[in-house]
């Protein structure tokens, strides 16, 4: 075995030591989504993951960054080279965004969080540093632990450092809005909009790309309604719903005066009431439980939380 495989970065080793081998622990990021996945239990020690950009390779479209770095700081650094990531910037950390796994409402344009994680280093329940995935944009070497970590709410391992895929920031980005146009028809008429949002009466569209392409798509929009330039998306209601694109397009399913913003083509809806609890197939729950048992036999990682109750 090559010696370089063993992680010798003192920062990560220090984090592993902090996590240790016993006692309940939970990692704190920006706490922007602290309340999902059930109540924290067992009074865990609250730790912060290490911070800092380790290695940014714009020509590889990858960035190696420690989990405690804020998404905002990361994006500032990437923007200097004209790049960004799929992570939503809600004031939280890179590790938090990955552990929660929620997408930006403009995910059609910037990609899904689960597809942006190339390599993960986490501290296991036994206090060991585990790596999985790889630094290249394409990789099928071994089982896909990065996928498992995204959205796992830190219940399987404490994310320490990751390599993320970056994307070029398009030359032009415009938001347009019109009232009384059908959002579904709008979505179908465009090639690949970065976002199409509707609150039931107005439609917001984000177009990104080369200037001429954006102009061409914008002219298609003008045939559908009287779209005008706006600064950005509407204010999103508090509660996040995960639906299929067709369900989101027909939201709300029953009559009522729910205020909402639905992301067409993506299936995300923000409404002023929470989504009714979704139920997992018991056979799937069994695998989830076995997974948790295998990775964290004593249940010390972020106790009380359950990725199945997001």
């Amino acid at each position, binding site marked *: 075995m*090559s010696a370089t495989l063993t992680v010798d970065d003192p920062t990560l080793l220090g984090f592993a030591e902090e996590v240790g081998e016993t006692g309940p622990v939970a990692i704190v990021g920006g706490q922007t989504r602290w309340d999902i996945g059930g109540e924290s239990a067992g009074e865990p020690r609250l730790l912060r993951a290490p911070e800092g950009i380790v290695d940014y390779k714009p020509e590889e479209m990858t960035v190696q960054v420690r989990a405690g770095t804020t998404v905002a700081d990361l994006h500032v650094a990437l923007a200097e080279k004209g790049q960004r990531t799929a992570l939503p910037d809600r004031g939280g950390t890179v590790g938090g965004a990955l552990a929660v796994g929620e997408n930006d409402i403009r995910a059609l344009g910037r990609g899904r969080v689960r597809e942006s994680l190339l390599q993960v280093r986490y501290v296991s329940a036994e206090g060991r540093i585990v790596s999985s995935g790889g630094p290249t944009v394409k990789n099928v070497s071994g089982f896909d632990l990065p996928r498992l970590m995204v959205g796992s709410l830190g219940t399987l391992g404490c994310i320490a450092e990751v390599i993320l895929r970056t994307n070029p920031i398009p030359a032009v980005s415009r938001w347009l809005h019109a009232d009384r146009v059908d959002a579904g028809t709008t979505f179908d008429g465009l090639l690949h909009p970065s976002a199409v949002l509707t609150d039931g009466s107005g439609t917001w569209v984000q177009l990104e790309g080369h200037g001429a392409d954006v102009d061409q798509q914008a002219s298609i929009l003008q045939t559908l309604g009287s779209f005008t330039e706006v600064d950005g998306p509407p204010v999103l209601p508090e509660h996040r719903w995960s639906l299929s694109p067709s369900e989101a397009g027909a939201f709300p399913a029953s009559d009522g005066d729910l205020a909402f913003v639905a992301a067409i083509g993506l299936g995300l809806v923000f409404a002023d009431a929470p989504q009714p609890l979704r139920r997992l197939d018991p*056979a799937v729950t069994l695998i989830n439980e076995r997974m948790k*048992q295998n990775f964290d036999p004593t249940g010390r990682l972020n106790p009380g939380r359950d990725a199945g109750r997001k």
Partner: protein
Amino acid sequence: MVLSKLRELAGGSKDESSGDPFVDALRNALSADRVKYDGAHRSLHSHDASVFDGGNSGPVVYPETTAEVQAVVCLANEHQRNVVPRGAGTGLAGGAIPLGVPVVVAVTKMNAILEVDEANSIAWVEPGVINLDLTRHLAPLGYHFAPDPSSQQVCTVGGNVANNSGGPHCLAYGVTNAHVMAMEIVLPSGDAVMLGGLDAEPQGFDLRGVFVGSEGTLGIVTKIAVRITKNRPAVRTLLMAFDDVRDAANTVSDVIADGIVPAAMEVMDKAITAAVENYVGAGYPTDAAAVLLAEVDGLDSGVDIDADRIAEIGRANNATDVRLAGSDEERMLLWKGRKTAFGAVAQIAPDYYLHDTVVPRSALADVLDQIYAISDKYELLIMNVFHAGDGNLHPLIVFDGRDEGVLDRVHAAGGEIITASLDAGGVLSGEHGIGVEKQKYMDRMFTDDDLDHQNRLRQAFDPGCRTNPGKVIPSGHSCADIQSLRSVPKEVWG
């Protein structure tokens, strides 16, 4: 009537009793004609498109429904036999070869495109649907299935799921994992469950995500909701010739650094270009040291801007010829050449060993130099054809297996290629997977702790180690003892 009678007599009667209670039980559960236990079937299902020999196939079954797959898995559990799923058998890492004498579950008869759901931008398909058939089916609707491995005319969507298949156009569109929204799988327990979902953010761990690319070790996929991608109205395909492979590699790296993500960027070196051109006659320049095929797609204005910029970058890197495909036919022919490159080498020698590693794009030129040096050292012809855009190398070692001792040199050269790739900051496999091919190299990329955790993931699905055992994770870290799987109790031609 007379003819059929005659034929019956001529064909003789076949012995239907197998003498193996497991086989008899399978025949009861499916039907006799879809459970094969003869030497011919077992011999053919002991191989895939790789150079690896496994054990021997036990019975070969052709289920047609999820319930039949469940029945096979349950019977295998009952009779304590292992299960190996199989699609078209085009894998190159030996992922589908049987170790021990497992039941081979060929999903080729589960080949229906069940539903195209435009409202959700997905199609529900069975695992045996051929990748290109799906794209052809979607064409009248203006969509395609984005993963396009070179074997797309024959490989199955189920196989794509198992291997997280890539392809030239995955540079912009992402590999299979990004195109699978949900799937029904039969777990090693025999239960059928749905993983993932059509909703934006399915709850629970991303079991869908870990199943894709698990090389058939976590269960058998029986239905798949694949994302369908709108066809782009404008496509530009550039063919660039270079006098030095390094220049082609540097062009690729510079294009990405320039902020362009083409739909595809492929490089072929001189030897492979000659073989390909001989087969398709697409007009590839056979005197160039390397050709670069770059494709951009999208809207009219944008693709012109990007194509012009790529051409400019190519010329800055000493491209001797820059050509834009003039028609769809020319474009299709160029791609046909690229995608049949591996098979075309048999014109040169009867055997080949196709490698698959990934290196950082910026390391492409250096690693290629090392590969040519390895070629000289072992006196082997190594040709290079690769997904340059994502750094995915495919060194192709061409040889004649009848030459004394050649296989030792082939494997030694392969080992050095892998080492060179890893040393450059790369990974073991970009799209072929680990299978049995690269198990012994896994500890060059992962520590014991890393492998231990991969095994924990596997065991959450398959605690009994019944599904495609002995693959991916090397012996010692794996739940199954590979050595014991390698001992074959029975002559297949017995």
